């Protein structure tokens, strides 16, 4: 790990201002991902701004009938919140399918959104990776590469990594918004669709945050009626990243919404695919995964996504 300087701040706007002004600064909250990445020297911040004391750890009702989740609310607290469990069960279910109890105690809502990919080539600093070192090339796109876990859609010729968050997939299906504070103290609201960026030829840019801009909250709209399901398909029963995950909200008339995890550089959802839900899993996936460019090793994810949604639709 490279040496770094460290400060604590007590105010989100102050944090954002400091992060914009100090070169090589990064925020740290739970640190469950960042510290690992620093140990591997995948992330090498020169300065850490600890936002743990900024007080953003409330879950509060909004005037619109939704919930405003402070960026520092832990994944454990969020998943256990009675309002979340009752009205946003897909979120609760997604959270508890991720990581482990210990990690969820420490990991925060804001940090979860910002976690980096688990592509094995991103983690191996001996390998070229455009996300880690822009322009270096992508070992995962090599002839003999291991790509079983990697993305099938939304990827590019520069990067085929996926976003690993379960929580974000549930937030996407709930139409949640990310609230931020900019270095000049202004508040911004971004939908998750706006928040996450596809790799294109700049895979190092993963979201729409400006230098210094800090997530302060995630805002859930009023509860979405229907059956809330999150199913994470993985090789072992626990403590593994998704091969494919499906977040589904389905109303009794058969309409609803679907988002996928484990297939793309961001939670994957298309309104046009949602509209096909009454026609079943095959119709939805044909639209949702239209344009997919799987590798030979991960083409199974196309079948898996469809069959997983079919399983959830059959559960009633």
């Amino acid at each position, binding site marked *: *790990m*490279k*040496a770094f300087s460290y400060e604590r701040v007590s105010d989100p706007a102050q944090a954002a201002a400091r992060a914009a002004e100090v070169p090589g600064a990064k925020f740290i909250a739970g640190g469950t991902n960042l510290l690992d990445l620093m*140990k*591997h*020297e995948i992330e090498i911040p020169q300065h850490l701004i600890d936002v743990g004391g900024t007080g953003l750890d409330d879950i509060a009702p909004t005037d619109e009938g939704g919930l405003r989740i402070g960026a520092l609310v832990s994944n454990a607290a969020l998943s256990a919140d009675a309002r979340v469990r009752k009205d946003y069960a897909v979120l609760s279910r997604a959270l508890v399918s991720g990581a482990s109890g210990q990690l969820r105690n420490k990991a925060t809502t804001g940090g979860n959104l910002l976690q980096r990919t*688990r592509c*094995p*080539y991103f*983690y*191996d*600093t*001996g*390998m070229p990776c455009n996300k880690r070192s822009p322009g270096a090339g992508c*070992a995962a796109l*090599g*002839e*003999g*590469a*291991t790509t*079983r*876990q990697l993305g099938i859609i939304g990827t590019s010729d520069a990067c085929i990594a996926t976003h690993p968050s379960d929580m974000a997939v549930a937030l996407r299906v709930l139409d949640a918004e990310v609230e931020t504070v900019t270095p000049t103290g202004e508040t911004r609201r971004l939908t998750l669709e706006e928040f996450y960026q596809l790799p294109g030829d700049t895979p190092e840019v993963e979201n729409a945050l400006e230098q210094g801009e800090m997530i302060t909250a995630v805002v859930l709209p009023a509860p979405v009626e229907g059956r809330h399901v999150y199913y994470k*398909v*993985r*090789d*072992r*029963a*626990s*403590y*593994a*990243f998704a*091969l494919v995950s499906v977040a589904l909200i389905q109303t009794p008339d058969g309409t609803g919404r679907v988002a996928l995890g484990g297939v793309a550089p961001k939670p994957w959802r298309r309104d046009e695919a949602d509209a096909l839900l009454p026609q079943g899993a095959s119709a939805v996936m044909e639209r949702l995964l239209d344009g997919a460019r799987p590798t030979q*090793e*991960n083409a*199974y994810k196309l*079948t*898996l996504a469809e*069959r*997983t949604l*079919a*399983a959830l639709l*059959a*559960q009633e």
Partner: protein
Amino acid sequence: MDFNQSTEDNLFDHARIIGKPHARIDGLLKVTGRAPYAYERHDVVANQLVGYPVCATIARGKITHMDASAARAAPGVAAVITTLELEPLARADSNVAHLFGGATVEHYHQAIAVVVAGTLEQARGAASLIDVRYEEAPGVFDLEDAWSRLQNTSEPIAHIGDVDAAFDAAPMTLDETYRTASQSHAMMEPHASIVDWSDGGQMTVWTSNQMIEWTRQALATTFDIDADRIRLESPYVGGGFGGKLWLRADAVLAALGSRETGRPVKVALPRPMIFNNATHRSGTIQRLRIAAGSDGKITAFDHSAISHTLPGGSGEDAVNQTRCFYAGENRRVAHHPIDMGLPESADMRAPGEASGLAVLEIAMDEMAEKLGMDPVAFRILNDTQVNPEEPSKPFTERHFVECLRKGADTFGWAKRNLKPGGQREGQWLIGHGMAGAYRGAPTMTSGARVRLQNGRLIVETDMTDIGTGSYTILSQTAAETMGMEMGDVEVRLGNSAYPTSSGSGGQFGATSATAGVYAACVALQAQIAKRLNVDEARFENGRVVAGQLDLALADVADGEEIVAEDTINFGDFKDELEIGTFGAHFVEVAVNAYTGETRVRRMLAVCDAGRILNPITARSQVIGGMTMGVGAALTEGMSVDTERGFFVNHDLAGYEVAVHADIPEQEVIFLDTTDAASSPLKAKGVGELGICGVAAAIGNAIYNATGVRIREYPMTLDRIIEQLPAA
């Protein structure tokens, strides 16, 4: 003590302590964090520095340039030693790749430098400042290519009878090809050593190693010094599974760092380096043919396999068990180790057997189905009591049929659904499968020293406890032999100052080391008898009794210490016998009808392994093997980048071992057997038997659940899903 013939009735047949359940005596130390593991031995020597390894990032080639000046100038750095500064260090017999020195890169993540600093983070931070340039050399990394080029070209290890004629004549034959994955030991404690070689004279090594004497000799060879100058301690080992049989880079780098800095240096291999830097079980491709008569009797086996190895290594011999597990007059087995540029393949728990039985026992299931036979009945029919290659060689004790019958009965095998895909609970397909298990029961020369001090007995041997229960069973053995209680026995292990033992490996440790301790205790008894001037004495209740004499052991030496040492030597009479351990595994799985996810629901093992020295620690060994078998079947596989030549998923996030949620109800039954030809205790090992056949039982259960026959491990859902019937 020489063990030159089968044991008669002896004290262990009337045991008070041996064979009884005893919780492991080191358990409290372990669960309270007080068992000292190598990297945490802060107290053994002052002024320790920390070394961090730097590893090659190409698979093959030469280092053309290394500049460590920035690293040397980094904060806290005491020394940087690069591989270019040394000639290649001598290679011990047990190592295939060089561990350090010279410009040649033989495999990915080969150690090429060590940075020594005051703290781990200082060393790690400086490590990445070393500028390394390479000239890459082409390599061969794809076992599939080798298979298509080389299958059927190797000389058979054994060719008995006329295999081709048997296949021509057989009414029923099977011919299938299977693949097993390369696997990592993934033991909890990484390879770690503290080495004090400050003055370049005496070298003291606190390490985590299964084989003290092998490793001491390997260090002597590596550094070209007298082994007598080296002392090794490894009293607690957080798992080995064969990965710590040998000297590895941690101890070598720590020794170099200590010599350079004049201070003790500790080095642990970081987890992401272990997979490519250290050893692993090679993947295999195996073709298995079976011929049988319409009566179900096997007439021929033809088993050929390839595995990968660095040039000079031996790979994973997956065909060996096929030579004598089942009857059949004709057989041909061939193993072709392929020279490849992947990291060093070597032994991992049941080396060869685990991969071979993972395949043979699926083939047996497939053959039983072709014959329309129950797979249990098919195996019973083809049991043999002699080595089929050498019918004059009998199995000493082989109760495989009893394992099968007992297992089938206990598991409720007869009640299972017979039609593949025919049992469903909700969205899950339920299936049952079974497999046979067979693993040899080798023994090794093993020594021990015992000290009687005022009625307390101290046992010293360089035997290791790698989580297996050695402390406990050796205490039981000594207490039993000396007529003492376990509380009056102290066992000291894993130190080169103690007599050389078998060490832990190959399922020989428990059998051999208990026999060595027994021999030392018998020598002590002789000394006591001599001191008391009696020809024969009984040792019971902490006393020695001879005729009129009845003396507490505390009183036999007037406060002096009596020391006795002996070694058990196993005679070559064993060469005329087949000594093995046997088992039967039964499992129930659920396979998601939509996604193809497999979850194991129930496991049963029935084991025939001679006298079970301690049913608690033996059960732990077997369920550990079963758990590893679940990993082998369902998740554990090191993925090869066939262009860049390395194992890609080289951490515990990418290489998935079973977690608690994967492991269901596990039941283990030990048959009440003894094997008088094995050792004075009539015991055999179980540590490797437990994994043998497990993966195949799961594969067979997946077939029963889904009707999909998977012939490639691990049986992840992507290998199932395209063949799954509509849900």
